[in-house]
């Protein structure tokens, strides 16, 4: 009953986004008018860039409002049934906005382009305003989380560097003393350096892929960014040895570099140094990642010795994850409630200048929401679930004992095929709870940042695992995700899996796989790609090629997560 209630909530997601969207569209229109009147208005330009960074054009948000099932449209090979649905928009200010706004067909500039314009206006009008550069960079650094935002992150990094230069200069020194009576200029500089380092960490994380497991092989790109971040954190730590953000950042870099044991030792040291101070969500997540690593190591050791793993580390990791989720929720709420719209008067006679410092309520709430933390929480919940499910959550449909007996998690794969009997589609126990939590976090993220494709993708994965018999919700989320970023290969991959497992449409699955490969060649390094490709071949009667595909995949991929390895094995047996 509780499960059904949660799925019903999921169907409200579109309404939830649209409700916030109404006001945002009105905000966008007002800001556009302000820019028409004053094309160098920093506050308006920043708000427009924020809107673009967080919201896809309205035309990308409709989904199936006419009642057409996406699954059936895919199954029948028909054209989209969900383009530009107007009917399900609630009444409100946005209805007028929809006609006049940029969403009405006018091509929207990208976030990177808008940030570039904003940066040049700021450099022209406020060449010595370190605070403005810093807070603008802080606002966008937390929002540009995906590989498609690399250009925007470049501009944000430039803003941070400019702020650092200004802070180091005599004018900056003045700002540092003005900004906070208790902070020295070195402390302010260290904090800004940490912010700049965070950009490199985000780039490394984006290169590694969302929810990348702690022991995943570190690619050259990831290592390069991690080392860049490490240098910056070291510099920050030198400037202000008491800066825990720098210490935690260094541990994060060690994790990205794969030095897990060193990271664990450092973490213990920081815990001792923090002297009972309540840890923030980021710190807890780091601890959780290291606990997950320990759990996987224990499991591997147990497998080698033939003993059963106690699962103590895995439970500890889950507890830490739950704690991190709670802390994150609490701090996000506090940020949203506590953020003030202090600079409403900006530009007015008492505002003092056209671009004095100060983020408005919405901007501060966005900074406080820390979407990247939520994204990591949802990804880790799902990763935990996949580690406890041998098929990785997306293996072949149940056909007898094959997938249901491997790890005792038959509930996730039973009755998965379209119209597949009356088997319970719900997922019970710890795994079900974790999935529901992942879904809840992802939903919150979508509400806050509707253009966050990775949140849609994580929500789709959680939805699919929770309700295997109704893949429509997952497909809707995937479709929305691909509308925002057609080059997001993991969504194509999951679409292929759904087409194959749930809709019985290998032709469509192959199409999705080809698209994924065409858009992102690195998808070939994902075992799920090979597994899906093999199953498509098998469905087309090409069993030998399918088997060869699986063997190739197993040969190429030596550093597999246990869940991925098990998924390959399950695939082989099924073939």
């Amino acid at each position, binding site marked *: 009953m509780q499960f059904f209630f949660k799925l019903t909530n999921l169907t409200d997601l579109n309404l939830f986004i649209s409700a*916030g*969207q*109404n*006001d*945002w569209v*009105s*905000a*966008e*229109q*007002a*800001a556009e*008018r*302000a820019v028409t*009147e*004053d094309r160098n*208005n920093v*506050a*308006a330009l920043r*708000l427009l860039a*924020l*809107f673009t960074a967080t919201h896809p054009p309205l035309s990308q948000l409709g989904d199936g409002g006419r009642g057409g099932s996406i699954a059936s449209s895919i199954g029948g090979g028909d054209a989209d049934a969900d383009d530009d649905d107007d009917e399900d928009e609630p009444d409100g*200010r946005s209805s007028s906005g929809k006609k006049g706004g940029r969403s009405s067909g006018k091509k929207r500039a990208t976030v990177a382009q808008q940030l570039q314009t904003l940066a040049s206006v700021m450099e022209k009008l406020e060449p010595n305003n370190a605070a403005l550069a810093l807070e603008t960079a802080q606002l966008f650094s937390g929002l540009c989380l995906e590989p498609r935002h690399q250009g925007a992150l470049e501009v944000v990094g430039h803003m941070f560097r400019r702020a650092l230069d200004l802070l180091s200069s005599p004018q900056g020194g003045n700002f540092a003393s003005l900004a906070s009576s208790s902070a020295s200029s070195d402390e302010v500089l260290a904090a800004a350096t940490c912010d700049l380092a965070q950009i490199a960490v985000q780039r490394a994380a984006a290169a590694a892929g969302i929810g990348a497991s702690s022991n995943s092989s570190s690619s050259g790109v990831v290592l390069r960014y991690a080392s860049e971040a490490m240098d910056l954190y070291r510099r920050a730590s030198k400037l202000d040895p008491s800066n825990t953000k720098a210490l935690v950042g260094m541990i994060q870099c060690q994790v990205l570099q794969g030095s897990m044991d060193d990271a664990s030792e450092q973490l213990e040291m920081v815990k001792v140094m923090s002297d009972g101070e309540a840890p923030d969500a980021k710190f807890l997540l780091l601890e959780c990642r290291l606990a997950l690593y320990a759990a996987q190591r224990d499991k591997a050791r147990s497998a080698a010795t033939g003993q059963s793993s106690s699962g103590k580390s895995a439970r500890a990791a889950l507890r830490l994850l739950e704690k991190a989720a709670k802390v994150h929720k609490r701090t996000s709420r506090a940020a*949203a409630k506590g953020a*003030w*719209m*202090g*600079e*409403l*008067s*900006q*530009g*007015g*006679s*008492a*505002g003092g200048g056209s671009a004095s410092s100060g983020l*408005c*309520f*919405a*901007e501060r*709430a*966005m900074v406080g929401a820390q979407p990247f933390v939520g994204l990591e929480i949802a990804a880790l919940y799902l990763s935990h679930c996949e580690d406890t499910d041998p098929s990785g959550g997306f293996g072949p449909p149940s056909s007898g004992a094959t997938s249901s007996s491997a790890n005792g998690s038959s509930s996730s794969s039973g009755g998965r095929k379209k119209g597949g009997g009356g088997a319970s589609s719900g997922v019970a126990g710890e795994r079900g709870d974790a999935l529901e939590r992942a879904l809840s976090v992802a939903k919150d993220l979508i509400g806050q940042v509707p253009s966050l494709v990775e949140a849609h993708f994580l929500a789709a994965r959680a939805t699919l695992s929770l309700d295997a018999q109704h893949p429509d919700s997952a497909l809707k989320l995937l479709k929305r995700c691909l509308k925002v970023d057609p080059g997001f290969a993991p969504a194509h991959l999951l679409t292929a899996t759904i087409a194959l497992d749930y809709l019985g449409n290998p032709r469509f699955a192959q199409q999705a796989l080809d698209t994924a490969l065409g858009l992102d060649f690195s998808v070939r390094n994902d075992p799920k790609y090979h597994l899906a490709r093999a199953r498509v071949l098998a469905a087309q009667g090409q069993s030998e090629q399918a088997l060869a595909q699986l063997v190739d995949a197993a040969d190429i991929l030596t550093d597999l997560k246990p869940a991925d390895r098990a998924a390959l094995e399950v695939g082989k047996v099924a073939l």
Partner: protein
Amino acid sequence: MNANGTMGPASLTSQVNTLKGWCCLREVDQQEGGGASSSEGGGGFGGGSGSGGGLSGAEEYFTRTLEEGGGADLDALLGLADCRARAFDWNSALEALNRAVAVAPSFAPALVAKARCFAGEANS
């Protein structure tokens, strides 16, 4: 002409009241930075004509200006909107800003304030 040069002459009393209102808001900002409760006010610019400081004091000063000047003083309207937005009363803030935009349709700061208000409402 008033301070913004958009309407007829504002009396000296109105100008002083508007200025006092903004001073109250600045004071609130400072108290907020220092950890004091901003909505309760902290005295300071409460001097004169029986108004207290803080948000309520600021709102009172702006309202007085508007009452005296026929409700069209742009500076006071922006101030009033600021007070209401700080109390998360988005609709009232937007009401004041709509009046401001009606007075001066091409005044960019009023349009920006309106945009920020809508965005704030979307996020609250």
